[in-house]
């Protein structure tokens, strides 16, 4: 299901602090993500995987290196251009969902589409379709406070898909979920992978890795392993859950 390169990082570095206490959150990372690939970046807490995700998504600017999305260099883009890029080409899923408490599920999903300038009618239609796809059509008018953790994350995934992004970036999407909710999210990611959606997921949950085409291990800001077979191990764990 893979094709041309959609996301690429070259010598990507992110440093914090000053020269006396320098922290290398991301240390000269090179990465190529072909279209349609689902990539899991695994590693312990503080290894820099979330920082890497933020750099790939243009949420943060690297100290050094380059990020390319669909042949466009994004690390030098203006804030405005980055915002446009995020709403048209990227979808984010966060560990703590980041839904707007005052908006219903369907309103949260159509948020990105409205920001992208879609008409309210089209945005609503697409949001309802996505909610149906994640199994929450009957919860469309519920506020996040009336949804379970798993349901909230499914709403967040629907929102990430709202503008048919080139890449969905997920940061510990199952970190705040119980086992049952985690399985729901895993099934969704598996569906996305099957549908050819490019996915980059940072996680320390091996079950997530099990549904990925490719797993990269990270430590101290750098990749230590790029093993496509790592998913086999994780897949065994996922089968156990299933």
């Amino acid at each position, binding site marked *: 299901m893979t094709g041309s390169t959609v996301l690429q990082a070259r010598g990507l570095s992110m440093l914090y602090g000053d020269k006396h206490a320098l922290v290398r959150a991301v240390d000269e990372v090179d990465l190529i993500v072909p279209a349609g690939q689902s990539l899991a970046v695994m590693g312990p807490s503080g290894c820099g995987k979330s920082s890497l995700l933020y750099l790939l998504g243009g949420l943060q600017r690297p100290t050094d290196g380059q990020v390319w999305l669909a042949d466009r260099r994004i690390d030098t883009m203006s804030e405005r251009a980055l*915002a446009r890029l*995020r709403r048209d080409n990227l979808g984010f899923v966060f560990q703590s969902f980041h*839904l*707007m408490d*005052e908006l219903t599920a369907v309103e949260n999903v159509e948020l990105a589409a409205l*920001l*992208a*300038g879609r*008409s309210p009618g089209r945005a609503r239609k697409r949001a309802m379709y996505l909610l149906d796809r994640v199994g929450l059509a009957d919860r469309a008018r519920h506020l996040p406070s009336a949804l379970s953790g798993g349901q909230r994350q499914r709403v967040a995934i629907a929102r990430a898909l709202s503008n048919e992004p080139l890449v969905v970036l997920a940061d510990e999407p199952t970190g705040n979920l119980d086992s049952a909710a985690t399985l729901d999210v895993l099934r969704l990611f598996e569906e996305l992978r099957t549908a050819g959606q490019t996915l980059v997921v940072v996680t320390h949950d091996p079950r997530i890795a099990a549904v990925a085409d490719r797993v990269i291990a990270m430590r101290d800001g750098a990749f230590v392993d790029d093993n496509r077979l790592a998913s086999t191990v994780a897949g065994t764990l996922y089968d156990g859950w299933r």
Partner: protein
Amino acid sequence: MAGRLLLVCRLLMRDLRRRRTETILLLTAITAATATLTIGLTLNEIADRPYQQTRTATAGPDVIVTPQATGQGALDELASLTTGAGVTDHSGPFPIAYLTMTAGGKSAHTVVAGRDTTPASIDRPAVTDGTWVRPGGVVVERAFADALGISIGDTVTISAHRLRVIGTAVTAARATYPYAGWHYPGSVLVERGGLVWVDQSDIATLAGNQPLSYTLNLKLADPAASSTYPIGDQLTTWQAISYLNGRLYSDARIALLVGSWLLNGLALAGVAGIVAGRIIGQRRRVGLLKAVGAGPAMIAAIHLAEYLAIGLAAAATGLVTGWLAAPALIRPSAGLIGSVNAQPPALRMVVAVTVLALAIAVAATLVPVLRAAATSTVHALADAATPPRRRWWRIWLSRRLPTPLLIGMRINARRPRRARLVTVNTLITTTTLVGILMVNTQAVHFDLGYTELANPRVERGEQATLVLTVVLCVLALINAVVSAWTAVLDARQPLAVARTLGATPAQAGLGLAVAQLLPAIPGVAVGIPAGVGLVTFVSTGEVQYPPDSSLFATALGVLLAIAALTAIPAMVATRRPVVDILRSAPT
């Protein structure tokens, strides 16, 4: 475009509904400022309008001539004026006597005017109650009747003659009480007093041995040129009477003008405090919006739209509140026709109030909104507090302080802007309180004849001070409560950590109170001389200063009020188990 507009409106409406308390506080703070401005502008309007209405209704003269001579000499002087250049009509001469009237045990200087029972062509006083003059009866100018507390049917005594009050009336030919222009015949020194009308046939009896003076009312071809009419210094123009009537409001006008500057400052500081707290609480929302593709302009638009909507609502509320409250708070003189809000607010008033409301909303929100728009997405999503700037002296000092002081200092170090807002709030509150104290201290030497009567000018000054005091209390309370609650909510996590390290709930609570009191102290210290200086600066006459004990009590009262208002939320916060606070994470 329609989609983005829908999004802005949706977020605006939902957020206003979701944060009702804050919305109401914002609305109240801006409304207090706009209502004060409306009252001030209404006062400006009424200073002039009722006199014009009265002048029209009573066929008011353009020039009133009252020679210093009395008796026949005066009549001779006036005789030639009726056919002078530019005179189109006249009434009189009417006899007048400068006497003393006693009513209900109160005595006052009184200008007694003798009039015919039939109305004159010029200066036809409008009877507001009862009937016009007839032999044996007296008609009292309405403001004078108000001050003396007399009504129809009462008996008054003028130069030992008892007369029945048969009516009250208003006129534009003499300034309303207490500026009726009483003086000893032949003297140029004018004293304060009231005006009554009696039948022409009664005035000679009332005057007794005193020679009668005479007054002549003239209508000119060019009323605007009255002040340059060439008769010398014996004439009074309608412009001079209008000015004298306006003096009734001069103290109130100054008080409201200066007071509204201070209150606007207080409202601005209050709104800034609420907005700062709100935007801190919306950091994750900002992060999320940016993550899904909202640019800085969109973020700013979403936030500004909310505050502009609140500003517009506050402008409307303030306008209506001020307009409705104006008649109760600032009565026009009873000696004139017309009421405060007889006409809808003028367009310039609506524009001024709207501009003020929007200016407060924008001034208080622009910086935090632009900051929010420019903030790092990752930082906003993590909802991380801005790390305090490390200052060696603060660290050095706080390490040597008792725990509550240490906690207080560190809380303020985390949010220096909020601490500065507390200082500004306290400074303006203290300045205004001291100003009000100063105004109330000014002794009023007001000779109204033989008995001290209610002084309408002081009355209006007191009304203005009352308006300022009420609005000040509302704003100061809102600011103190918001500031205390914001500090408490913001300091929950660090205080919980301090408690896990061994601080007691009492020390934590005291620390919060100290955090509010520390920046309030310089505000109070500067506010006292600022208030004294401000009143001294705007006062026209001799200034009297309140006793030091009153100033000290004001300062102490402000600090105690802040401590008390902080103590309640602090106690509530420190009663919550530490584990709950440390576990609580935004969802």
